[in-house]
């Protein structure tokens, strides 16, 4: 029983890392109706920035602050150069644009900062600690707590600030938002900047675990099943989806893995997502798709 609980809790904690990646997608999808394929590239770019600055001698907090500023500048640039000229185009056009964007950002990141694997030390050792008689990874706990705090901050932003309420209004009905004088360009800038910052946090956590390298941009592929399960339009869905994928993956690996010859983690999340597609095509918390002006 303890072993089961350990597996479950380990999975849930790891799942929060998936949730983090998925939240970046949901933010942008809700506000601008775009499936942002470049989210993975943004994540890689942010993490690379941070380690490079740290290697250049900046203390960690300063490197993080500088990376946040860089993500804000990137968001402004993307809004101006990509979103604004393409306003009103079809979803597939926008998707293709973000596909192109992801290659540009990845190329830029590696060109400027190199392609080798960089180690990132957040000062949290990945050793298990015991709570009661259950062993959990200290790093997983730290990652989950970080994700939790981030979600709390986002919830406060959306519900308690004017910008947040405007953001929800845009996500809800873009035309109506325009008609009452909400500046869509500014909202897009803010959302992309927030998604960039969420990407930075996710990138640092993933980077600390598996090294900061090109493969980091592929965690996007981990977010896809999470989004299918949780729905593209709900942050709550992204969280739940991440937890479900994390827990199911871990349990399946431990209990079903041996029967299937092991190593089922890479595809099990997709298998689960497909199963969900049959039952709930819009995801657990999915709403109707929003239409962008």
């Amino acid at each position, binding site marked *: 029983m303890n072993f089961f609980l350990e597996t479950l809790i380990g999975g849930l904690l790891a799942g929060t890392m998936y949730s983090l990646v998925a939240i970046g997608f949901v933010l942008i999808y809700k506000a601008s109706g775009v499936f942002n394929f470049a989210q993975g590239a943004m994540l890689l770019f942010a993490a690379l920035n941070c380690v490079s600055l740290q290697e250049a001698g900046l203390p960690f907090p300063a490197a993080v602050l500088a990376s946040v500023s860089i993500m804000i500048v990137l968001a402004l640039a993307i809004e101006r150069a990509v979103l604004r000229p393409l306003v009103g185009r079809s979803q597939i056009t926008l998707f293709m644009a973000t596909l192109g964007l992801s290659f540009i950002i990845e190329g830029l990141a590696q060109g400027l900062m190199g392609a080798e694997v960089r180690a990132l030390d957040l000062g949290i050792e990945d050793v298990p600690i015991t709570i009661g008689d259950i062993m959990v990874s200290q790093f997983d706990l730290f990652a989950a707590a970080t994700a939790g705090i981030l979600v709390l901050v986002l919830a406060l932003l959306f519900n308690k600030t004017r910008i947040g309420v405007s953001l929800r209004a845009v996500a*809800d009905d873009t035309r*109506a938002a*325009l008609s009452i004088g909400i500046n869509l360009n500014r909202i897009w800038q803010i959302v992309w900047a927030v998604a960039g910052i969420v990407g930075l946090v996710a990138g640092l956590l993933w980077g600390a675990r598996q090294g900061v390298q090109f493969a980091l941009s592929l965690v996007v592929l981990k977010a896809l099943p999470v989004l299918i399960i949780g729905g593209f339009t709900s942050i709550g869905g992204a969280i739940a989806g991440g937890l479900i994928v994390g827990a199911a993956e871990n349990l399946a690996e431990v209990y079903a893995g041996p029967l299937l010859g092991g190593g089922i983690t890479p595809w099990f999340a997709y298998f689960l997502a497909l199963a969900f597609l049959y039952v709930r095509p819009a995801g657990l918390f999915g709403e109707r798709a929003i239409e962008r002006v």
Partner: protein
Amino acid sequence: MTTSSILRVDNIHVIYDQVILGARGISLELPEGRIHALLGANGAGKTTTLKAISGLIRAERGEVTCGSIHFAGHDVLKSDPAALVSQGLVQVLEGRHCFAELDVDENLRVGAFVRTPSRADLRRGLERIYTYFPRLAERRRSRAGYLSGGEQQMLAIGRALIASPRLVLLDEPSMGLAPQIVIEIFEIVRRLNHEEGVSFLLAEQNAAIALRYSDHAHILENGRIAGSGPSAELAERDDVRASYLGIGAEGRRSFREARHYHSRRREH
């Protein structure tokens, strides 16, 4: 006259997607403090005209190809909608378009943000709207998506008014609503006009109610103005009565025509 008109539209032509004609040569003038109406069947060009004025047309790949639009003496043809709202020109969209996931209070608040009000101003603004729409006050914490059609129309109007506009473009406020609710809404429009001096340009397929509550009206057909005049006079004209009020020399419209008209209204 020119100096006191809040809105002057001169011979505007509007196209969508670079080909589809939405309006061809619309001119109108609205003196400050008045209520004018645009009447006409579905597809006549009422919404196009309103969106050309508010600048929202550009978000639908529409474009004013010639003519001019002046609001409070300024050329606003190229102004963006947000700038116009903060200058006091706001449109209430056809079909209400409340923010369904936001509650009533949030819907109203977000309408005020364009003016960057202080907290105290915002509170006063909310109370002002709730005095005009007591039904909304009762439902402050309900999500807009759960309101009735009439309440949503009130919310859409309240959300526009909280920005203290001088001119409101009101598109089909009666659409899909029960007759008593329509009267309730038009009474509030009249009060806002009398008590606060807000000017209204309203688009309506329901000519009977629009003529009753407006000072002056224009009849649109195929993107052109087919007739204009003081509302009271138009309401007495035989051709208007026959085509737009459903009352002809031979009595009522045929049942089939009337039914066709009503079903079109409902589906739109």
